[in-house]
């Protein structure tokens, strides 16, 4: 409850409303044992109100009033909830004054209802409800004050008077309640004292009142203070009425705030009093009075807002408010024109009370104040401190997720930096500015400032300029320069590191890499001269790693795209050299990387040299050895391509030797070296595969068979384990070559042995034989290899029927290729690529279209579907209403799927209606689902929907691809469905492209359809121009001799289109149109008559 109260208070203060009372009323304390459903429901409703879900909240509380799950005694709380909701709505400026007034009235009505129906008149809810009445009144006044400011003249005067009367009345009532509670407190105090005297004990000091009484006392004080603060706001500032109202509020507040010296009303009250005094101060021209009022403001803030010493504050609310008061104090000083006093009077006090403010400030109040103070510091020519402070604030606030504070501080920082300009800033300030923008996430700007830093790193003192200054100023400049010189390395390293990070944030990896690579040659040798050697040493080492990783990323990206570029390789080599320089521990890994770069660049010999230096105990030894073999293999294949037989032989030998060397290498492994062993064996197994490729190319059958056998002997058991799953498929490659090799050697028995061997391997732990109609438990990839091998053996045993049959059956049993439903496959493919990859989308779309022709060969037959047989099949025994509504839904479904006289089918609607129909009969009890047309109906509807979707998507793609025959099919469907002009233009164009009089006629009809709605406007001009083009095209497509009349007819039709336009809209005629006219006329003239 306390915490809730605290948070509510913070919210209340922040938005300067009377939310606190609402919060009190809104959240009744949980029951002693635990919250009941009624409590949760009420709290949830209030949460909805506070989050702005007004409609839902209204429905929720309305339901609450009658919800049987809520105990009857609790239900009136629904009225309280509604009152709070309507009060909130009354405050919303999006409603008119009249609507807001109505909401406030509804709020009061509901509150009255609550107070009448609430059975427990002593409950906290009831008591807070009583205060809530005034809360609503005051909110009402608050809303009116906003409206009054829009008025002027007599209307304003009248409204002011009326509103002031209302508020005065509310204040008087509140004062009465306040007085009554005071009397209650006094009576209670007397009672306690009397009891203590009777018991011979000392009364408690300070007096402890019942919690409920304390809460009421606090609530009424808070509302009253708010009312006084609001009162002057009714009047126009500077007027006599305003001044009088300020006086009245001051007196009223002073009269009671002092009584609240144990709660937060004391702090609030102090702030309000200071604000009112500030109004007064602004209103007077007398310097003496002004000065006196300034003094009073100071006294008031110290007497009230800062009354509770920071070390005595125990509640979060108090602690927060006290910090908040510093900001209010600064704001007031700024209002009365005493900005210069903010640092001495506010900031000094603040940092004294909160020395660790950067870490501890509550809700970022210190960050707001610090940002304001930094701006003042910048005005006082202390830009560096200001920038440093703002940077620290931004960093800290960012880390604490206080983004509004980050924004506030960043805005201040931006103003300072823009004003100073980079030229006027020294290198350290520029660095801070860069950091500020970086923290703000503005990497672009940050980079700009870091670049200024880099430009200024080499700046020297201008002796000539210095000579013009006084000796004292010269000394000052020299001292500053010397100080800076000591930090220049630190600054440089930081700037380059940050630049690299900023570029990386912007996704500019190459630029990030260039910046990171720059640090080591520039600063590594100077690192011992840095001011903070340890930090800079670490930073440089880190940059070594960053540069390497970035360079590798860039290099690998270029390698993946088959565009290994030299620049990327050079950058990576540079990064590798740098990294070795700054961190000797990574030497052997980097040597490997160097070899890898050479290998990727096709420099296999240098790569081999690098790999050879990797020691046996290195993690990368296995990879290096494999890569050596691979490089020899590549050298061999390259030499072969170049027809260099001598080199081919030389490298072939080296490749085979190196591979055999790895395969036969004996290595011993100790405890804790399991990972290294695994890595080694995986690579060694890969060497088998590589050697197999070479043997296979060379037709070395016997060696191939031995190699496969050797692999099986070495890895058969290991390959089945989880740790070695990467090598599990290696024997497939080996035996895929060795079985045919044995067959080529005419050694059928060996081939069979080999087959058995690999079969035993792939079926290890599974059924070794299965019935003829069953499949072996293998994956698709393995199955395919085995099918191939069994097929080869079946072929080899052509003369041996038993064996041939056996191996033929083996091909069936290993043929485990599973085919998904092709419709789903293409549908998924289409959905995946639609809008992303036109070619693939079109391909999938066309495949689907072919299927639709088959799947939708039997369309929905409207007559059958509307038949009695079908409608009667929808019947829910004993539930006529349900039957009727389901039949209506069915009819709607048929309308949607088959279309009506005026409308084509609406498949999306059909799908929805069908879903509703299925929901009405979730267990498919009615017979309709068994009728032929309705079997698999959901899927059929999906086909219709999908076809439309496919056609719509692919129609422009088909046009683009120039497949006009197909475009006609697709577009005719789309046009019939959507009737859109854009599709009609495309369809007409497709007809034209196909050509032929029939198609031109169809195109002419489509243009006619487009033209019809715009016949009375100039919009017809471009359409007619297209028609003219079409007719001309048509005429030209005909045989001028055999179809002379038709040619002339169409050409003249084209001319008529242009003539029509010229007559009606001469101003719309363009030179192109006239050119077309000339062309047609010339064409007609050229026809032999």
């Amino acid at each position: 409850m306390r915490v809730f109260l605290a948070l509510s208070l913070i919210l209340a203060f922040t938005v300067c409303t009377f939310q606190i009372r609402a919060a009190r009323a809104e959240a009744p304390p949980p029951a002693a044992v635990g919250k009941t459903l009624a409590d949760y429901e009420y709290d949830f409703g209030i949460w909805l109100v506070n989050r702005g879900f007004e409609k839902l909240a209204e429905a929720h509380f309305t339901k609450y009033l009658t919800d049987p799950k809520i105990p009857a005694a609790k239900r009136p709380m629904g009225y309280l909830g509604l009152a709070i909701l309507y009060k909130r709505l009354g405050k919303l400026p999006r409603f008119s004054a009249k609507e807001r007034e109505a909401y406030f009235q509804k709020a009061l009505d509901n509150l009255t209802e609550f107070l009448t129906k609430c059975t427990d008149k002593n409950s906290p809810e009831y008591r807070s409800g009583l205060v809530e009445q005034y809360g609503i009144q005051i909110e009402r006044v608050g809303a009116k004050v906003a409206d009054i400011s829009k008025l002027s003249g007599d209307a304003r005067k009248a409204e002011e008077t009326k509103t002031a009367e209302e508020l005065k009345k509310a204040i008087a009532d509140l004062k009465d309640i306040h007085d009554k509670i005071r009397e209650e407190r006094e009576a209670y105090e007397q009672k306690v004292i009397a009891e203590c005297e009777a018991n011979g004990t000392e009364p408690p000091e300070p007096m402890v009142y019942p919690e409920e009484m304390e809460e009421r006392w606090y609530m009424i004080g808070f509302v009253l203070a708010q009312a006084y603060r609001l009162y002057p706001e009714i009047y126009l500032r500077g007027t006599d009425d305003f001044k009088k109202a300020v006086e009245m509020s001051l007196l009223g507040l002073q009269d009671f705030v002092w009584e609240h010296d144990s709660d937060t009303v004391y702090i609030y009250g102090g702030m309000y009093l200071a604000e009112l005094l500030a109004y007064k101060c602004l209103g007077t021209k007398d310097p003496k009075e002004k000065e006196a009022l300034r003094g009073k403001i100071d006294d008031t803030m110290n007497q009230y807002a800062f009354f509770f010493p920071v070390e005595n504050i125990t509640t979060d609310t108090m602690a927060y408010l006290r910090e908040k008061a510093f900001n209010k104090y600064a704001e007031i000083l700024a209002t009365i024109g005493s900005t210069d006093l903010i640092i001495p009077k506010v900031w000094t006090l603040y940092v004294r009370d909160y020395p660790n403010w950067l870490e501890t400030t509550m809700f970022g109040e210190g960050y707001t104040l610090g940002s304001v103070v930094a701006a003042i510091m910048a005005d006082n020519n202390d830009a560096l401190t200001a920038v440093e402070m703002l940077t620290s604030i931004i960093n800290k606030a960012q880390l604490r997720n206080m983004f509004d504070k980050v924004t506030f501080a960043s805005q201040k920082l931006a103003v300072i930096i823009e004003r100073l300009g980079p030229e006027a800033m020294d290198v350290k300030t520029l660095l801070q500015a860069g950091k500020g923008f970086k923290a703000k996430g503005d990497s672009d700007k940050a980079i700009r400032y870091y670049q200024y830093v880099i430009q200024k790193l080499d700046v020297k003192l201008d002796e000539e300029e210095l000579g013009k200054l006084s000796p004292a100023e010269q000394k000052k400049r020299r001292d500053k320069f010397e100080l800076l010189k000591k930090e220049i390395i630190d600054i440089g390293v930081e700037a380059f590191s940050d630049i690299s990070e900023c570029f990386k944030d912007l996704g500019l990896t190459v630029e990030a890499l260039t910046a990171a690579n720059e640090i080591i040659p520039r600063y590594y040798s100077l690192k011992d001269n840095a001011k903070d050697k340890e930090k800079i040493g670490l930073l440089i080492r880190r940059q070594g790693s960053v540069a390497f990783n970035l360079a590798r990323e860039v290099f690998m990206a270029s390698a993946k795209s088959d565009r290994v570029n030299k620049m990327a390789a050079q950058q990576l080599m540079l990064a590798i050299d740098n990294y070795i320089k700054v961190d000797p521990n990574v030497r052997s890994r980097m040597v490997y990387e160097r070899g890898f770069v050479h290998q990727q660049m096709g420099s296999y010999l240098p790569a081999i040299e690098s790999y050879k230096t990797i020691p046996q105990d290195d993690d990368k030894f296995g990879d290096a050895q494999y890569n050596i073999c691979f490089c020899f293999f590549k050298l061999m294949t390259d030499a072969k391509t170049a027809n260099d037989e001598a080199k081919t032989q030389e490298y072939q030998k080296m490749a085979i030797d190196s591979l055999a060397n790895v395969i036969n290498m004996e290595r011993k492994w100790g405890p804790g070296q399991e990972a290294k062993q695994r890595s080694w064996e995986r690579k060694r197994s890969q060497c088998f595969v590589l050697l197999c490729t070479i043997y296979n190319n060379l037709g070395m059958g016997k060696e191939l068979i031995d190699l496969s056998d050797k692999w099986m002997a070495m890895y058969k058991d290991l390959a089945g384990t989880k740790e070695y799953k990467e090598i599990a498929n290696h024997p497939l490659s080996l035996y895929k070559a060795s079985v045919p090799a044995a067959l080529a050697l005419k050694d059928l028995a060996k081939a069979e042995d080999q087959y058995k061997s690999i079969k035993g391997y792939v079926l290890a732990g599974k059924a070794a034989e299965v019935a003829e109609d069953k499949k072996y438990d293998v994956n698709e990839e393995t199955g395919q290899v085995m099918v191939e091998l069994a097929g080869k053996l079946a072929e080899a045993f052509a003369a041996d029927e038993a064996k041939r049959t056996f191996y033929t059956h083996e091909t069936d049993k290993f043929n485990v290729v599973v085919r998904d439903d092709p419709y789903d496959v293409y549908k998924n493919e289409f959905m995946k690529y639609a809008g992303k990859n036109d070619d693939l989308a079109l391909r999938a779309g066309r495949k689907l279209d072919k299927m639709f022709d088959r799947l939708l060969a039997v369309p929905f037959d409207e007559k059958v579907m509307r038949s009695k047989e079908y409608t009667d099949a929808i019947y829910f025994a004993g539930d006529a209403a349900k039957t009727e509504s389901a039949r209506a839904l069915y009819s709607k479904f048929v309308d949607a799927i088959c279309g009506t006289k005026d409308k084509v089918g609406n498949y999306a609607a059909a799908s929805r209606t069908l879903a509703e129909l299925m929901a009405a009969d979730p267990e498919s009890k009615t017979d309709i689902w068994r009728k032929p047309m309705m079997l698999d109906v959901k899927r059929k509807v999906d086909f219709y929907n999908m076809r439309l979707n496919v056609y719509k998507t692919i129609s422009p793609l088909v046009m683009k691809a120039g497949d006009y025959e197909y475009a006609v099919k697709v577009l005719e469907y789309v046009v019939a469905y959507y009737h859109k002009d854009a599709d009609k233009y495309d369809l007409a164009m497709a007809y034209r492209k196909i050509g032929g009089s029939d198609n031109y006629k169809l195109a002419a009809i489509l243009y006619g359809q487009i033209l019809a709605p715009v016949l009375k406007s100039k919009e017809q001009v471009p359409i007619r121009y297209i028609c003219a083009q079409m007719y001309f095209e048509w005429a030209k497509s005909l045989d001028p001799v055999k179809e002379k009349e038709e040619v002339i007819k169409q050409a003249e039709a084209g001319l008529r289109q242009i003539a029509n336009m010229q007559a009606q809209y001469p101003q719309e005629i363009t030179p192109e149109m006239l050119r077309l006219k000339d062309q047609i006329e010339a064409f007609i003239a050229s026809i032999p008559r």
Partner: protein
Amino acid sequence: MNTTLKIAFLPFALLSFVALSFFFSPVAWGEQATLVKWLKSGAFDRSRTADVVSEDCESITYTGLGKQARGDVIFIEYGTNADYNTAEKQVSDGEDRAAIKSFQTAMEKGKEEWLPWYCTFRIGETNYNIGLAAEAAKAFEDLNNKYPRNPFYPQVCCYLADIYMMQGKKDEADAQLKAVAAKANVFQVCWVEKAQVLQGRLLIAKKQYQEAIRHLKNIQGRLTYAPMLSDSRFALGECYETMGADTKDINAYKEASKVFEGIAAELDENTMGEAYLRISRILYNTSDYEGAYGFALRAAFIYTASKAWADSPNYLKASEGLYYAAKSLFALFGREKDAAKKDALKLEIRIVLDLLKSRNYANLPWSTKALNEIK
């Protein structure tokens, strides 16, 4: 983070809460230390103090007491390492990423035997809590591989199983759970039970629904820790829900909803939010958008404003609720024909989206998802 696994967070989240709720008394290794126990009711108790001589995953040794079973001790508070304390403070302040760095610093600088265990564990846990599963797995794997004696061994196995399941590595998850089951008589009961619940979840992940239902119903009678019981009930509901999604069986959805409604009706704020979330998701997936909207907001309410969560709101979970609220409203908007009602729905969608853009929700995965999907 995969929603399926979220409920598995619950005890972990509670544990994290414990770890960061307790401050550290100034004790040194071998001196008096505070033991945090996880009671079967789900509450945490730090009533016992003793001289800790050493601790490992199977036993704990105190001066004067000799070797004794760890029982329900889940955390020992040492307060002697300033860097470690700084990191814990950062965790409690919600500065998770900064805390991870501080744990690393503490581990590099400190010499105490417990530091690498605790720091690596907390790095894993913190990464896990902010959704960086791969980083969390790396830390946890490091911890159990390098320090098989570490006191968090079974708990780490559970974490790893959870993460592996999320990553689809079912065999690896199974191995972790078996490692706990193999020493069920030695490890703390809470983690043994946790592993049993996770085993049920693994069966769900393997789509062995009937087995999962049997397993979960079977263990429910034997689970002694209230949070584990609750977790197993969620798993059961989740099993029905996944089955519904997988087989399009509306009855399975109904069963799932029934399970979650039962949980919500208990008015336990630690589980209510999650139950509301699940109901909302089920209703959304079965096109009851109005119902889904109401329950989704209830979830957001519980996670941010209820007594149990108000002090440290779970915005991640709340954002999931708001996601379903937004999606449901969007679906209703699409369905609505009346222009005025459409406008009202638009306003409500805006409220939800604005909330998701606000400071506490901005950039959370569900917020981003909602904002991307609803334009």
